[in-house]
């Protein structure tokens, strides 16, 4: 193995493509596996088509302890020895690699499609399918359990509620779930492929709708990537407004989730109040920019809307009221023994499992892992204003609910502080052309967890490739393992405790 130093970089630090070491695939594997053993995790692993017809692999390794990223790259032909057998968190990425570029990870234990589309590299299909044969979503092998009294429950893609589509298969013995397997891809809209050649007029709408409930998180990750490539910093005031919007998004979703969790255990007071208070937080975002989800607010170079003094004091006032309301609503949960008894032992994910799967965000923190982009890979305002990491040890539904509540309190305090000390000045800076032949990794902590965008530019400064990793991409496997040995009737509760994105996964 070459003695080259690991290619270390920080969140939002552009690197020249030519400076990224390209070891052999054997060395690449060894380095990725070594980094994982050393406590790093895979933030992104993806392929980009190379001029010679091969595929160039990129691995973005994140070390939470060092707050540093490492980047590795290798050229691969149509197959290579899979990482997954030695490193479980690679499983989804390697399936994606196989599906998008027809690169077969040899030895992958369960190589199934991720989104059910044709290969992007004509004539190369990891499953040997022809480009003309139709691909049906969800049509694949599923684990099956044998036995007289074993039964299979299949749900979806269309679910009972107003919710996105996905297909779930449970292997059950009576009420007990032995295994859950999830097939997604129904929401696949071809976003990543459409981003190539940008930025253009549609880039922002794509970012704002990658996962509609995470408009601010994804748009912020994108804008910080573009700003890094253009060598421009958003003005301080814009950075503050964007952080406020990101925390409002967290508040709205966490509050809504706590209400939905209460609903799933039949505790209607909190369900009813939180459903309403979630709207109060969305309306605060609308007070700032006119849209409840923050659409139209964030643009490369800053923000399109400002918070003038009258609006600012209105926000302070309404936030204080919402704080009282959400406290009154949520504390009922912890004071109700019937709620606690349903939350406390349901859907456990151990710390070891969470580490092995590379879970991110509140799901990881609820399993006792201190993992938060805002603390470990801070960008924008979070470099100057810290939010303590909220974690809990038990890994259960209770932990995921309680971490939400801790984060609600900390986001409320954070926004209040920022509103009292908003920097003066403009909210937008001019953005010039993007640096050609560069790569940048941009991380933000969305309300579900780490959002990772990786952009590479071509010789003209247009996107040669754009990789999006929604936190759900890591965390869906956490849900499947949380269900093991649980009662199937607890599925809605466990599912809501993760509340993962379908479209963020399907892209």
């Amino acid at each position, binding site marked *: 193995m070459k003695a080259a130093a690991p290619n270390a970089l920080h969140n939002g630090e552009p690197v020249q493509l030519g400076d990224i070491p390209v070891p052999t695939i054997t060395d690449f594997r060894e380095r990725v596996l070594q980094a994982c053993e050393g406590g790093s995790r895979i933030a992104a692993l993806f392929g980009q088509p190379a001029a010679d017809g091969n595929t160039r692999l990129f691995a973005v390794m994140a070390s939470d302890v060092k707050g540093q990223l490492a980047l590795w790259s290798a050229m691969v032909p149509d197959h290579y020895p899979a990482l997954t057998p030695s490193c479980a968190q690679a499983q989804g990425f390697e399936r994606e690699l196989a599906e998008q570029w027809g690169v077969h990870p040899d030895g992958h234990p369960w190589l199934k499609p991720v*989104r*059910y*589309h044709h290969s992007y590299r004509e004539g190369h299909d990891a499953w040997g399918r022809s480009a003309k044969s139709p691909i*049906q*979503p969800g049509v694949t092998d599923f684990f099956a359990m044998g036995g007289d009294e074993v039964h299979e429950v299949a749900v979806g*893609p*269309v679910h*009972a*509620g*107003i919710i*996105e*589509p996905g297909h779930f298969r449970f292997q059950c013995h009576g009420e007990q779930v032995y295994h859950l397997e999830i097939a997604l891809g*129904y*929401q*696949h*809209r*071809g*976003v990543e492929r*459409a981003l190539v050649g940008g930025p253009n*007029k*549609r880039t*922002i*709408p*794509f970012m704002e*709708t*990658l*996962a*509609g*409930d995470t*408009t601010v998180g994804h748009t912020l990750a994108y804008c910080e990537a573009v700003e890094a490539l253009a060598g421009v910093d958003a003005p301080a005031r814009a950075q503050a407004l964007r952080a406020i919007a990101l925390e409002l998004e967290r508040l709205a979703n966490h509050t809504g989730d706590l209400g939905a969790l209460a609903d799933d255990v039949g505790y209607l*007071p909190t369900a*009813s*109040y939180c*459903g*309403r208070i*979630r*709207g109060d937080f969305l*309306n605060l975002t609308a*007070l*700032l920019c*006119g*849209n*409840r*989800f923050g*659409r*139209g607010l964030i643009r490369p170079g800053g923000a*399109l*809307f400002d918070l003038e003094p009258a609006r600012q004091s209105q926000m302070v006032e309404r936030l204080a009221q919402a704080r*009282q*309301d959400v406290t*009154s*609503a949520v*504390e*009922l949960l912890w*004071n*109700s023994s019937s709620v606690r008894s349903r939350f406390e032992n349901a859907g456990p994910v151990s710390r070891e499992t969470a580490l092995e799967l590379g879970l991110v965000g509140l799901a990881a923190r609820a399993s006792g892992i201190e993992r938060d982009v805002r603390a470990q890979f801070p960008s924008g305002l979070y470099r100057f204003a810290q939010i303590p990491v909220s974690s809990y040890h038990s890994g259960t539904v209770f932990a995921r609910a309680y971490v939400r509540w801790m984060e609600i309190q900390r986001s409320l305090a954070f926004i209040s502080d920022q509103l009292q000390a908003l920097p003066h000045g403009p909210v937008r800076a001019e953005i010039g052309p993007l640096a050609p032949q560069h790569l940048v990794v941009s991380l933000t902590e969305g309300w579900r967890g780490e959002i990772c965008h990786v952009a590479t530019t071509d010789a003209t400064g247009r996107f040669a490739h754009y990789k999006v990793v929604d936190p759900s991409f890591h965390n869906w496997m956490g849900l499947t393992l949380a269900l093991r040995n649980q009662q199937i009737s607890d599925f809605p509760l466990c599912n809501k405790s993760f509340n993962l*994105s*379908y*479209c963020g996964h*399907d892209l």
Partner: protein
Amino acid sequence: MLKPLLARVHQKYRTVGFPDQPPVLPDRMRGRPEIDSTKCPEGCRSCADACPTEAITIGDKGVRLDLGRCLFCPECERACPEGAIRMTPEHRLAVSRREALVLGPEPFQLAQALEQKTRKLFGRSLKLRQVSAGGCNGCEADVNVLNTVVFDLGRFGIQFVASPRHADGLLVTGPVTCNMDSALRATYEAVPPPRLVIALGACAISGGPYAGHPEQRNGADGLFPVDLYIPGCPPHPITILDGLLRLLGRIDSSC
């Protein structure tokens, strides 16, 4: 036991007065745009060039804006040098015909109530099945909130049901991804006729930002006969409620 009661007192009665009272909306809300083509400088195409979804066309009769494609973003308004195009907080946006979504010099035709026979069937009890077919969870979220105490959809006899067999109609969100095509059609077939179809959001009406992608079908329009179009990205919950109530003839069509 005392704590839940105290919380109940604290949380108060929160259902909005709409439709009897005008809705309270954010002042920066981007609802129905207003166009004044007389202000347009000769040959100016700034708004059309800025629009991310090609919703704006400029012809003999001036600027036309297709609300079915519009994402209600601030781009055209910001691009216009003369203030000829302006986003207003006007929330009433739902229409009955696709063509009515194209804003021009003509008066805007809001959704018409169902004809009397259908209205007799559905007017006091409308059960809908919602299908997200590639929706980003924005439209879905703002449909979901109609069930909260704020909007209290149940008071109008409208309910979202789990089974299409129990439904009188389908509310579609998303551009209709190829991967949801067959599930959506199967759901539609499972709704007993006469059935209504509501296309909600730019994606379900035209494909929205995904229009033209080979992975989707440019919305539900064209797959089924659509009875109500509710544009937006996503439409404000009040816009959705307004549309549903107009369809059922529960809002006076003159206002």
